[in-house]
């Protein structure tokens, strides 16, 4: 005889991710590492920002570079002779705590003060997945259009610092930077917003200041 049975599972995948994220953070805290998750769309300037910070910050830095299948970002950072782990998500459009846990295994955490985690270029999927970082920096650019913030409110709600990059190109693409700043402030009233042109080193010192303040 066969019978039908109902089995309670109550297993929340996102809570499971959160637990793993907490474990990552405990591991980082134990090693005295401050970790920053960098989120932003493809081409917003995540890797450029990380490169500039490596050049200008006087700390031992490690990098986890997430990409769907390529290692381009990891290769770009490697030339600074610092520990870099390239994480390929395969098909996924975001990093999760489990992948980052593996990334941490491959890093000499005792020799690092600051860990930069570059998420996959995407303003949507990474929102739901805590990685265990201490700070979330969201970087967007004028060239993405000045409605970018309005269209992706959740990622800004969770941000600890928001950077609006490529402001030097705002006029060329008809983007209203003040509107972008206002949109961020409506969604996340206390978050600091920094306008930058990273290519020209504009605003980078202010970003470093904000990171040091958070550390």
């Amino acid at each position, binding site marked *: *005889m*066969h*019978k*039908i*049975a*109902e*089995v*309670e*599972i*109550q*297993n*929340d*995948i*996102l*809570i*499971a991710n959160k637990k793993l994220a907490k474990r990552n953070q405990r591991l980082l805290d134990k090693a005295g590492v401050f970790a920053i998750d960098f989120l932003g769309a493809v081409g917003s300037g995540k890797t450029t920002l990380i490169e500039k910070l490596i050049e200008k910050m006087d700390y031992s830095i490690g990098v986890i570079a997430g990409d769907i299948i390529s290692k381009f970002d990891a290769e770009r950072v490697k030339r600074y002779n610092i520990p870099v782990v390239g994480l390929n998500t395969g098909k996924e459009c975001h990093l999760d705590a489990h992948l980052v846990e593996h990334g941490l295994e491959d890093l000499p955490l005792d020799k690092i003060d600051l860990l930069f985690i570059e998420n996959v270029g995407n303003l*949507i*999927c990474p*929102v*739901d997945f805590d990685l265990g970082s201490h700070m979330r920096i969201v970087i967007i650019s004028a060239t993405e259009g000045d*409605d970018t913030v*309005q*269209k*992706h*409110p*959740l990622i800004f*709600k969770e941000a600890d610092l928001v950077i609006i990059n490529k402001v030097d190109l705002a006029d060329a693409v008809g983007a209203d930077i003040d509107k972008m700043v206002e949109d961020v402030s*409506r*969604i*996340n*009233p*206390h978050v600091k917003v920094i306008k930058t042109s990273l290519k020209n080193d504009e605003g980078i010192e202010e970003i470093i200041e904000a990171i040091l303040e958070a550390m």
Partner: protein
Amino acid sequence: MADAIIKTVIDAAEKNNAIEVLEVTIEIGELTLLNPEQIKFILEVLSEDTILEGAKFNIEIIPARIECPCGYNGRITSNDELDHYNPIISCPSCGGGEFKIIDGRECNIKNIKIEKEE
């Protein structure tokens, strides 16, 4: 995400000596950026050639609920002004943006209905 769901369900089905999984019920929070229709489709594809093949996937949406320092505790509704599925912009009572999200961020595998030997 879908892969994690499938693995969890197969694991639970095997532990309970299931011959077949008939139904899987998943709760998805309104504020997650998961698309229930896409999740359902991917689950159906991933369940092929597993004990889950042919199972019915039920998706229940958990409405968003916030707790605001102003004392408001309850649902928030979508703001049509914004071009987004369900943005969280402000507390419907005080208009503030500093609230705690109580419900709406779930991706919970609630239960499964299985067929098993008596």
